[in-house]
């Protein structure tokens, strides 16, 4: 019997090792690394002091924290819009569509997901730019007299972002709603509830884990998005990830880049944590896919 539990202990260690290597080397250490880097102030050639200088610089430069604020606000806006856009679709797929159509619809929803961010952004460019499809249609139908540039403004960025992330809202919602017993809704109606009451008191609380999961993923993807705001917003995009890119690649100022990275991380983590707290869910039972 002693041999058997030794064998089990060995198995545990063997299974734990890849996990530990992965998490420590690729997640924990790197993040400690950028945190460490963000505290390094460039005092002279290859000389560094530890200080909050980078953070102070960030706060002092309006364009930086304006960008962060703007990213934050738009991200939250996009997330809320996505929830409202996506929920009816998710409900339709989970509850109303018939069996066969449901599988097909779900698959249709997934297809844009598999195609790269790049292709999606590119598609919107083709559609919305001056020489693009929508402009062409508008001209052809006589509604406008000349080519219309629809890119490079905030509304387009929002539309593009919603498009990119709406599926990440729908998928967890469908999974959660799928598990809901139809008889719960029927009981709600049977006991006299109106459609609004049933929605508010029965469906939404039940779907809460899915909603929170969607919220977290969508928000995180939006705030961390790069291609869509940059390509669709052009020079006016002012998106925070673009700032990070600039600092790292264009200016080679890794300290500043790391600082921005840490700030972005703190920001998204705080919102995620708030979201989890306010709705009483935990990370494990929302984001972990069904």
């Amino acid at each position, binding site marked *: 019997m002693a041999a058997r539990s030794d*064998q089990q202990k060995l198995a*545990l260690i063997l*299974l*734990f090792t*890849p*996990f530990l290597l*992965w*998490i420590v080397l*690729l*997640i924990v250490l*790197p*993040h400690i690394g*950028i945190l460490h*880097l963000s505290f390094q102030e460039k005092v002279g050639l290859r000389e560094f002091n530890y200080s909050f200088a980078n953070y102070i610089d960030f706060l002092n430069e309006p364009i930086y924290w304006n960008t962060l604020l703007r990213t934050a606000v738009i991200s939250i806006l996009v997330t809320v819009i996505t929830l409202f856009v996506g929920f009816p*679709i998710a409900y*339709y797929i989970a509850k109303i569509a018939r069996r066969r159509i449901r599988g097909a619809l779900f*698959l*249709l929803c*997934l*297809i*844009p997901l*598999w*195609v*790269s961010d*790049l*292709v999606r952004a*590119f*598609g*919107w*460019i*083709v*559609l919305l*730019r001056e*020489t*693009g*499809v929508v402009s*062409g249609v508008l001209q052809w139908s006589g509604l406008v007299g000349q080519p219309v540039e629809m890119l490079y403004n905030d509304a387009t960025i929002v539309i593009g972002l919603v*498009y990119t992330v709406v599926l990440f809202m729908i998928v967890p919602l469908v999974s959660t709603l799928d598990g809901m017993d139809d008889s719960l809704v029927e009981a709600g109606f049977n006991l006299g509830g109106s459609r609004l009451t049933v929605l508010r008191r029965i469906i939404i609380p039940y779907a809460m884990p899915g909603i929170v999961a969607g919220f977290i993923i969508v928000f*995180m*993807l939006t705030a*961390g998005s*790069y*291609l869509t705001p940059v*390509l669709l917003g052009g020079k006016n995009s002012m998106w925070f*990830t673009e700032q*990070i*890119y600039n600092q*790292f*690649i264009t200016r080679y100022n890794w300290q500043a880049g*790391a600082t921005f*990275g840490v700030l*972005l*991380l703190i920001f*998204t983590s705080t919102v*995620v944590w708030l979201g989890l707290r306010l709705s009483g869910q935990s*990370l*494990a039972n929302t*984001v*972990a*896919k069904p």
Partner: protein
Amino acid sequence: MRTQSLLARWIYHGYVIVFFVYLAAPLAAAGLFAFNDSLFPSLPWRGFTLDWFFSDTEPKLGVFHDDRLLRGLYYSFWIGLAVSALSVFVGTCNAFLFERKSFPAKNFFYVMMIIPLVIPGVILGISILVLASSIVNGIEERWGYEPDFLRPGLLLVVLGQFSFITTITSLVIAARLRKFDVEMEEAALNLGANRWRVLRTVTLPYLRPALIAAGVVAFLISFENFNTTLFLVGSEAPLTITMYDRMAKVGSTPVLNAVSVVLMVGSATLALISVLVQRDVPDGR
């Protein structure tokens, strides 16, 4: 009341249809202009052509003859394969670790496993870049040797993508493992198999659909990844980066639309395979 609810129903259905049109529109646009016989991916429509795929003369260089794009495809493919294999392997270990074993602070470690999913890809990229770079500098300073493979390049790209894709594969495989009735392992033991044989002939075959699905998902996500890859890429660039470069610097020709079509068809096929594999598997009982 009846007409109101009928109207409501029609609006609802209409909304659903509009939504799917909205989903399809950019993809259709991107794909359609791949077949446009024009130098720009825009109107007017000058006729149907397959040149952007197959032609090999300038200025209309088709996808399958454009060396840089083809090389991008080649790298994307191998990166995807590597990431897929690694993440399915580690994902399987993680699945067994969390579904079968008990150990202290298990909940804490489980949360740690999920955290990569809530970290923006950009942050994953820069953090690994910084770590690799400090390691390289450290080794160079101490021993004078510069480990090139830790500089931005294929290995780093694979590691960067692996860092979060593993979470996804772990979850997919763990979900299937959870449904596994331990009685079957006991039955196999009872019939005379040793533990390795049980794993090989009973547990892993049961997991097979999940392993395949996880592998396909990992491949697809790796293939289309941009944010994390952007910071880790060296001179050998995968397709997404190549395409972005082309778009930003040279301006777009319909060859990029052709690439989009190839990507769409490829991912749709793989996704279909993974769904089919998961569908016709009996659950057992």
